[in-house]
């Protein structure tokens, strides 16, 4: 981001500064997305799968093959092919999935709400638990609580998530039966409501289908708790270090001297200052949940983006894989930039400097 020179120089008020920042961000987005396109295009070119055979089938005659070869633009030079690829990608055309025989963009639009719902519940769990736990650890730095929080975090970083998921299913579903098994919802409830938003928790609640709502909750509980645990470990660790930084500042001493209650110093004064970088941490954590649930979705048969991607992979459906990869990359870039932007908006020091 530093590489692109400031577009507006000189004395600035807040609004032009934000505008300059925004246009710089737009330039960054454009360059990065162009790069994503180059990478996915090149990956698509080195695949050992013959794209023509994938379309016409392996029993096609030579003339059919040749026709498809030309239709796919494979006889043109590489840069022309890349141009065509970009042209299609910009209009949202990533080709058809070999598996579902539908446009990939439709497949992804159907899978995305499932991932979004799971990631959102997970980030809520992670944030609501992670921040208090992190603050607590910072206040009692070096004490038992701090050590326990550190160890919980370390366990989270070290355990393979798909393994924890399997063990979770074994214990909570198969042995104790307190949560529902794989999938988003039981078949018996699937037609009890109309999926308008695709977020089942929202849909069932809005339509007053409480039995279906409970079923959805018991399905999402385990995978969301698992992903929430991982993001909690990260958020708690970052909260702890930001809070330690704030609690060492002089304004905390001043507040103490003035006789401000300790809980107020911690939860109001210090946490508000720590909140600015925390917004970045939470946004990035959310981004990684949106993309990083590939393994979790596989274990829990959760019909989201990650599962779509792995299914396509196992069937050598390269169009779907690359389209999915590209879109996930774009979401990732978008959330990254959003976190940058929020930082600028929230922190007056950064705002004034830019």
């Amino acid at each position: 981001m530093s590489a692109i020179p400031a577009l507006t120089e000189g004395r600035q008020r807040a609004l032009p500064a934000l505008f300059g920042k925004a246009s710089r961000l737009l330039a960054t987005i454009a360059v990065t997305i162009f790069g994503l396109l180059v990478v996915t295009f090149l990956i698509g070119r080195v695949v050992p799968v013959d794209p023509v055979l994938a379309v016409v089938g392996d029993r096609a005659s030579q003339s059919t093959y040749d026709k498809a070869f030309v239709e796919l633009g494979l006889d043109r030079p590489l840069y022309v092919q890349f141009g065509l690829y970009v042209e299609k990608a910009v209009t949202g055309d990533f080709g058809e999935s070999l598996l579902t025989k539908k446009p990939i963009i439709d497949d992804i639009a159907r899978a995305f709400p499932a991932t979004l719902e799971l990631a959102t519940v997970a980030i809520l769990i992670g944030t609501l638990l992670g921040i208090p736990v992190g603050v607590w650890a910072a206040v009692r730095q070096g004490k038992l609580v701090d050590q326990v929080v550190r160890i919980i975090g370390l366990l989270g970083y070290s355990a393979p998530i798909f393994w924890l998921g399997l063990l979770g299913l074994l214990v909570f579903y198969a042995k104790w039966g307190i949560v529902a098994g794989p999938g988003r919802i039981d078949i018996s409830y699937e037609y009890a409501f109309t999926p308008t938003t695709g977020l089942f928790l929202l849909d069932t609640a809005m339509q007053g289908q409480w039995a279906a709502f409970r079923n959805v909750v018991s399905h999402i509980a385990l995978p969301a708790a698992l992903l929430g645990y991982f993001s909690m470990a990260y958020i708690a660790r970052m909260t702890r270090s930001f809070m330690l930084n704030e609690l060492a500042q002089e304004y905390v001493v001043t507040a103490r001297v003035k006789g401000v209650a300790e809980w107020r110093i911690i939860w109001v004064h210090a946490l508000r200052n720590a909140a600015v970088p925390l917004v970045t941490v939470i946004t990035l954590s959310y981004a990684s949940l949106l993309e990083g649930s590939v393994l979790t979705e596989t274990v829990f048969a959760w019909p989201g983006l990650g599962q779509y991607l792995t299914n396509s992979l196992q069937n050598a459906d390269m169009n779907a894989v690359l389209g999915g990869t590209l879109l996930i990359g774009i979401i990732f870039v978008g959330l990254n930039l959003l976190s940058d932007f929020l930082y600028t908006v929230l922190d007056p020091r950064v705002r004034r400097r830019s």
Partner: protein
Amino acid sequence: MSTPVSRQSLGDWLTSEQPVSRSQARLGQIWRTWKLFSGNRLGMVGLGIVVLLVLVAIFANVMAPYDPLLGGDLRTERLLPPSWEHLMGTDDLARDIFSRVVHGARLTLLVVALVAIIATPIGLLVGTVSGYFGGWVDTVLMRITDIFLAFPRLILALAFVAALGPGIENAIIAIAITSWPPYARLARAETLTIRNAEHIDAIRLQGASSPRIIWGHVVPLCLSSVIIRVTLDMAGIILTAAGLGFLGLGAQPPQPEWGAMIAGGRRFIIDYWWVATMPGIAIFAVSLGFNLLGDGLRDVLDPKAGK
């Protein structure tokens, strides 16, 4: 006059304030770092686990009581629970799981070592060149780095493996390709602080070429922080490799790769829990070891980043 044989201990020689040779100074530095590190209890636990992993990998043939690939009698020895005979039980092909986990240590170590060997030099090279030259070289290289960072790691590795075809070699290449960007960022940041140092100016005035300055004088100064970063990353590398194996894109059967073993045991986890659980414990222990080791190293070598 013959110099009297000094009766100093090895410790004194290592911590001497006036080292007589470069190697004495270097060994002394290593000794002091070790002294600091060995006081870090969790770091030592991590080191212990990593050393154990290396030993198990080396002596896998001796340690494993059974063949990791050939199973026993399919009629009587399938899916046996853990016992003294089979410490971790047997899998659906009547293979001893303990022997497979032991041999799996080799694959895990291979992946970690090769990824580190491939990704670290790429990251160092890109980062130092970018930071040293600045200008458009910096812009172009950092933009490329950003593009790689824009992909979530596992997704990019998945796409590469899909393109190259499944297999442990391709998984290693894919993980290496996705691992170098953070190292490049770090090396660049370090280089920016070194670039204008006086000793670099002095070397430049002596007429040293840019490659010589970068390779001989910038890279060594970036090395320690990059190595800490790589160590901290190793747990992530192991988890990514296991994830690829679990999805069937890493090591192929019958290779005893831990992630693939979990995938194999997934089908009958409810009745035969040990098949999927045991390799998971191995992954967990090893990545915990690397995390602890990395944290310990960071605390000792890079006091400003820790805590």
